[in-house]
């Protein structure tokens, strides 16, 4: 079972994340939305201080919820046979 929580943030806020507080390795390994404006971080339990301090962030998502979001056109480009 995945007990992590996920929050979508502005990509520009990745510079404000303390990566010792979240599961992601670094700013450079975070996934970006296709237009490059959004990213997300994950953590166990309550939101760490560097995430809580962000002005612009989504609600907290479960594992199943974030997978559903990541499977949308905002995050994933359809493969083409042409």
């Amino acid at each position, binding site marked *: 079972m*995945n007990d*992590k929580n*996920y929050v979508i943030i502005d990509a520009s806020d990745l510079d404000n994340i303390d990566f010792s507080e979240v*599961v*992601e*390795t670094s700013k450079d*390994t*975070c*996934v970006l939305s296709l237009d490059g404006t959004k990213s*997300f971080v*994950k953590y166990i339990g309550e939101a760490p201080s560097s995430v809580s301090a962000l002005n612009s962030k989504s609600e907290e998502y479960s*594992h199943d919820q*974030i*997978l559903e979001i*990541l*499977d949308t056109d905002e995050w*994933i480009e*359809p*493969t*083409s*046979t*042409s």
Partner: protein
Amino acid sequence: MATHSGHKIASDKLVFSLDASNPKCYSGSGTAVNDMSNRNHTTTIINGTGHTSSYPASKFTFDGSDDRIDVSTLTGRIDTPDGFSVETWYRGTRTDRNHMWNFGNVSGVNFNCNFNDGPYALWFYWEGSGGNLMTLTPSTLNSNGHGTSFTDGNNHHLVFTHTGTTNKVYYDGVDISSIFTTSGTQTMENVNATGSYNIAGSPNYGGDIFINRVYKKALTADEVTSSFRADKDRFGV
């Protein structure tokens, strides 16, 4: 290379080997993974990829959001005069689109193992955004007795081999190449792992990886069968 049940795991031209059950490959903590081939590729756990030690098979677990393992020094041209192969023991759980492995991240030279994309249960594509391909629909997979999904939550053995214009796919020890649809060039002259080879990279794979091996040759049918039989009891297949 290890043998089990009298069957030998292929070792000729093995250039990358990840085995979650081998403590020399992964100690159980930290982000450094040791490539068990003699190439000693730099291999790193990214974004909290999990590891569980268990009998009979330990595993790396990927959450499907951004977990992955990067093999940052396995770069450059993939194809060789002897071709190449990728072998994986895995348990896929993500039912929407996800890539179990990728060579490179640049369209035009990449090569991807792509599950559950649009109408396809499996879509290998290379040197572009999808037009050079081998695809297989769930219904065709099912009508050939293999279920409707490669990511059905069960353990499986998947091998892709390439040489010249011949691409083959073996699933749980069976050559299923003939049931795939092919289109575009079947050569891989330009496939280049620009950036890195990665396991579970974007769109990120969800599930477990037990073993992943890359060879700089096309494994023969006998070699695939032998590797499959060597470990199938361990994985309950």
